[in-house]
């Protein structure tokens, strides 16, 4: 998925670089404008993350305003992870996200093989269904799912949240994985059959290893979905603070009258870092998969 994008990028940089060289002497104002645009863009995109980090590392966050930590400290992180109870929230989120990834990736893989490799009646309808359920607003689903989870007696428990997250991650997982499955040459499958392999053997030895990169990308996406989710955690976990995930655990640092911004930003940093690392790992593949899934079907 990433290879064509990179080669296209490479192919286009070369003529661009060649045509820019003579232009550099002639078009000074243009170059300056472009430099300003880049500087402004970097400021706009990075300032929130930078400000979050600075406030997290500053013992005086909130007391004074400075653009580098005025009083450098790691105390905010220490407080958040020990007395703030954030270690528990992190463990909960990790548990929920990993369980969601395992279950939803497995189900999505099976389903995506079905829609990418077989032609059967109602196939288009199944695909349309998968596409349409992605558009349903979560705030609309939260009311009936709250009642449903309550009927199952799972309110306030992590298992209730996992069940819901699997359902939320599934449509996108199917939609993305089918592109990866379809990209595996059918000839390889046929060769396996000629060698006498059963369908199950072919699936394990040919399809699975070749789809693995796509599976990783999809898994990371489901992980991020579960890690970031807010509305359902807020509604389904209710008052069970020991079961809070990171997204709603943050709220415990908001005071009645004043907010402990140093702690809030330290906790936000802890939440954001894993997502950013994962995102950079898969961004190329994700962007390719998104557009391929969206446009190409």
């Amino acid at each position, binding site marked *: 998925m990433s290879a064509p994008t990179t080669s296209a990028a490479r192919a286009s940089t070369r003529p661009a670089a060649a045509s*820019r060289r003579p232009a550099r002497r002639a078009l000074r104002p243009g170059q300056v404008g472009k430099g300003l645009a880049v500087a402004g*863009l*970097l400021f706009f995109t*990075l300032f929130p993350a930078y400000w979050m980090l600075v406030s997290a590392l500053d013992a005086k966050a909130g007391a004074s305003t400075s653009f580098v930590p005025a009083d450098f400290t790691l105390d905010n992180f220490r407080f958040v992870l020990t007395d703030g109870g954030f270690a528990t929230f992190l463990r909960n989120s990790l548990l929920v996200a990993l369980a969601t990834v395992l279950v939803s990736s497995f189900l999505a893989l099976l389903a995506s093989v079905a829609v990418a490799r077989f032609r059967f009646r109602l196939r288009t309808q199944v695909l349309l269904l998968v596409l349409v359920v992605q558009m349903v607003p979560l705030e609309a689903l939260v009311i009936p799912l709250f009642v*449903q989870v309550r009927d199952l007696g799972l309110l306030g428990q992590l298992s209730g949240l996992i069940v819901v997250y699997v359902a939320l991650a599934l449509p996108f997982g199917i939609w993305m994985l089918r592109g990866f499955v379809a990209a595996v040459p059918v000839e390889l499958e046929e060769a396996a059959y000629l060698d006498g392999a059963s369908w199950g053997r072919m699936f394990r030895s040919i399809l699975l290893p070749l789809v693995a990169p796509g599976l990783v990308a999809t898994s990371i996406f489901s992980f991020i979905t579960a890690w970031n989710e807010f509305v359902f955690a807020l509604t389904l976990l209710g008052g069970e603070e020991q079961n809070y995930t990171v997204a709603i655990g943050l709220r415990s640092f908001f005071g009645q009258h004043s907010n402990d911004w140093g702690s809030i930003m330290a906790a936000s940093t802890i939440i954001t870092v894993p997502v950013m690392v994962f995102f950079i790992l898969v*961004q190329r593949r994700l*962007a*390719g998969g998104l557009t391929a899934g969206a446009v*190409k*079907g």
Partner: protein
Amino acid sequence: MSSTTTVTAPTGSGHQPGSVGGRLARKSVLARWRPWLLLAPALLVLAVLLLWPLIRMGMFSLQDYGLPEIVSGEANWIGLGNYTEALTSEQLRTVVLPNTVLFAIASVVCTVVFGTAVAVLLASLGRVWRVIVSSSIMAAWAMPAVTGTYVWVWIFDADRGVFNHVLQSLGLQDQPVNWFTDRWSFYAIVLLNIVHHGFPFVAVTVLAGLLGVPKELLEAAEIDGAGPWRRFFSVTVPQLRQVFAVVVILSTIWDFKVFAQVYLMPGGAGSNREVLNLGVWSYVESFGQNRYGFGSAIAVLLTVLLLLVTVVYVRTILKEEEL
């Protein structure tokens, strides 16, 4: 876009999997049912956790559904009462609908225009700077909605926020302003948050499309005397029509559903009735006032609105080719 469309190329291999399936079908009954066996677990989960809840939401919306009904499980049908109340309420007409629809339009326009501008800028940069800038864009994209919103709230905080501080030290205002109480400045901050979080997807997608536009077309237009603006709007944009359609529609769907970015702002969770949008209104009425029936009716309205957009989206894709 052509650079990515060649990747999966389902059209080229489209008929071949069919032939494999066809051959297997003759082999055994198991093989004929294999696609459905593979699909069954996923479809079951989707049916129980997404489709059935949607149907129940419709049923709740026709009832006076509060805490007693949740506990007893008894139905309390009141027909279309919830819908009449929602559709005739002053709240919907003057506050909620503008906050939802006008905000969605504003944020889609801003996100797409800004994202496209960034894509054009990226396409004109050398390799080193392109890597630097696109990495920083990724950082903005990866920021979770919850923490991102808190950071914006902190930046614009009335007492100790950096924004007020800078304005005051520049002498632009005498005393701190609470930006969250006024409806317009509240949504200006939400807009900033949404654009910051949403433009990377547009930029990356449009950039992929830009790199796929044949150089010959642009050169031919240049020889014909077209300036850079003319070349962009008369050559590049028509080539990217499909990309823009997808980007605009997906952004529209996302921006109608803005929830956490409003709910987590000061006053956004229902205490400031001026800043409610459809999603937050539905949530606040349900879980704040225990009026689950009325909240469901609002949720149905939001879903119908999104479904209309989705129909356009699906038709755009279907026009392109078979699924």
